[in-house]
């Protein structure tokens, strides 16, 4: 059986169910790299230029950990998902950067995902890739349809049951022996965490931010727990037509949860992130208009866990006091 490797980083959190469905429908076996660990970080960090942002460095580490474990590696060049909103340059250059920095990598499947050029163009790119696995066009077409369905179901599951991608993905990975977490509905403070999925849900980058907050008795709200349309509406209201593909997750989710009168907002970004350096400020500005506490965490490979915890505790204390005073 042909094995396709997928690094557990960047777009993985958004599209893994779709990719898995697609490749399995074509008879391939999926190999996913393990959750980020020290070895993966060191490997990725040693190859990439220092200025590269942490999640991309980790991506290379994940790619290195898959060498010799798969026959192909799937690294799409994500350019745009329509609306003239674009991904960051590093997503587009990802397959080429991986080829340059991880020369021992198996053959990289790198379809260019650009919905601005129309669905036909996108389908053509996927079809060309599918031919590595099957010569039957109808089988590829069917795989694409199934993948789309799986993706919508994944999104719906998260927004309907108010669970995070990690919880939803754990269910998919259930055969790996992981327990399924129940959605969190504690009545305490509700704090929205906004940011890129590959930052929030990579425990190595975020130092287990979500579970830490939950352990502190906080009800955590994330962008995926809101309906996509609601995020899009909020995003357009605050920032107009989007320029980045991630705008719904940051500006949209920020505005949505501010409007919903959440007790506080925590934005999480990695140092050196181009899109975030622009977008976060808009949400911060908006939060001060709503007079809702806002904490921005800028993380990098040197972030210490102790410092992070102190800031979280101080922030939560402030939110609690504000709630008491205003009540």
């Amino acid at each position: 059986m042909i094995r396709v490797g997928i690094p557990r980083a960047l777009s993985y959190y958004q599209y893994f169910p779709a990719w898995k469905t697609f490749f399995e429908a074509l008879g391939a076996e999926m190999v996913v790299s393990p959750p980020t660990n020290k070895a993966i970080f060191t490997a990725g960090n040693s190859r990439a230029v220092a200025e590269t942002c942490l999640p991309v460095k980790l991506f290379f580490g994940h790619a290195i950990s898959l060498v010799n474990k798969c026959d192909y590696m799937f690294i799409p060049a994500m350019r745009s998902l329509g609306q003239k909103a674009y991904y960051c340059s590093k997503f587009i250059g990802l397959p080429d950067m991986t080829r340059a920095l991880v020369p021992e990598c198996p053959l990289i499947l790198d379809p260019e995902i650009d919905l601005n050029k129309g669905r036909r163009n996108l389908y053509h790119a996927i079809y060309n890739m599918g031919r590595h696995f099957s010569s039957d066009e109808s089988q590829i077409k069917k795989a694409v349809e199934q993948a789309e369905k799986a993706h919508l179901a994944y999104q719906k599951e998260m927004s309907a049951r108010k669970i995070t991608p990690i919880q939803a993905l754990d269910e998919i990975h259930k055969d790996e022996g992981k327990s399924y977490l129940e959605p969190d509905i504690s009545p305490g403070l509700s704090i929205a965490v906004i940011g890129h999925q590959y930052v929030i849900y990579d425990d190595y980058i975020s130092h287990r931010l979500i579970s830490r907050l939950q352990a502190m008795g906080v009800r955590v709200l994330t962008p995926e727990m809101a309906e996509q349309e609601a995020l899009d509406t909020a995003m357009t209201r605050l920032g107009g037509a989007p320029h980045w593909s991630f705008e719904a997750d940051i500006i949209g989710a920020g505005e949505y949860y501010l409007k919903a009168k959440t007790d506080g907002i925590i934005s999480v970004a990695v140092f050196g992130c181009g899109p975030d350096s622009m977008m976060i400020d808009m949400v911060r500005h908006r939060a001060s208009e709503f007079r809702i506490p806002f904490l921005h965490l800028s993380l990098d490979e040197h972030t210490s866990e102790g410092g992070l915890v102190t800031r979280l505790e101080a922030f939560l204390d402030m939110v609690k006091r504000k709630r008491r005073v205003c009540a």
Partner: protein
Amino acid sequence: MRIGIPHCGHAYIIAEALVQKLGNGENELIVPPPTSHRTLDLGVKYSPVEACLPFKLTLGNLIEACELGADTLIHARGTGVCRLGYYVKEQEQIIRDLGYDAHFLTLDVSQNRFRSIIRLMKDLTNDAPLPRIISAFRFAMGKLFALDNIEKVVHKVRAVELEKGRANQVYREAVKAIGEARTVGEVKSAAKEYIKRLNQVSQDPTVDPVKVGIVGEVYVVLDPFANMDIEMELGKLGVEVERTLSLSRWVKYRLFLNYLGVNEWKEVHEAAMPYLKRNVGGDGWESVGEKVVYARNGYDGLVHLAPFTCMPEIVAQNIMPSTKEDIPVLTVLYDEQMARPGMITRLEAFVDLLRFRRKRRGT
């Protein structure tokens, strides 16, 4: 309307020339003072911390234009993956928060660029008739091309002049003369005159200078304040500098020849293909391709300029070391923390390395 513009190298000369030809009417052009440390301080103070240097510098320019009474601000916008597409959204809010009542006119530099420029010119010139705009535009372009041609000569002369700093002096006079020229004829004769004077600067004929290509993100490559006069500093070290990017080239191709199907980057993109297959926004693709082309053409080295955290250039930086066509590359990243002596030390070390390589190869 009082129209303020940001700086980028000598781009302001185009705007000034247009106004010179079409006259100030109801709409007035406000060129902010040349980018200075005050500009940088203002930009840094009011920008998001992690914004890139071009954002901070242009914001500083626009604030200084507002101080002079500008109520309409012009800024470039690109559709694509670089942060440039977000500048206007963000700067508009910052300037409003500072209490200035100014609105933005955006100049599209990627899609619809031609229409966008014509519309902007109509705004700038109080709806002057098209033939007058065209003749004013030709005049402005004449200045731009003259300046870029003089710059090409000064890059060569600086490296081999006997009395260091002489070429630069002539160059400064040339910029002034071109800026003051009032007719197309005057521009042409000034350009001719100064190119002649530059070539007359006493040179050392025995020196075969080290040749270096300059590539990178367009704003820091073209703006001498942003790149701390890197071309001049290299010239002082006896290095001949070559760069493809220039404003006149941009205008010539992006506004005219591209529409006729000419792609000025064709060779460069083809050279980049084995290493980077697609446009990653900004100038990342071109940087990789140009490295290959400069290496093929026998250049001694490459100086790669980018603002700190520039996304497209980080892609280029990650890919460049793996190209088969190999020349030494020095990447210089600019932010507000950067100091000129640090840059000069790095340049000196780099040039020493290039000279040593030459000697070892026995050329």
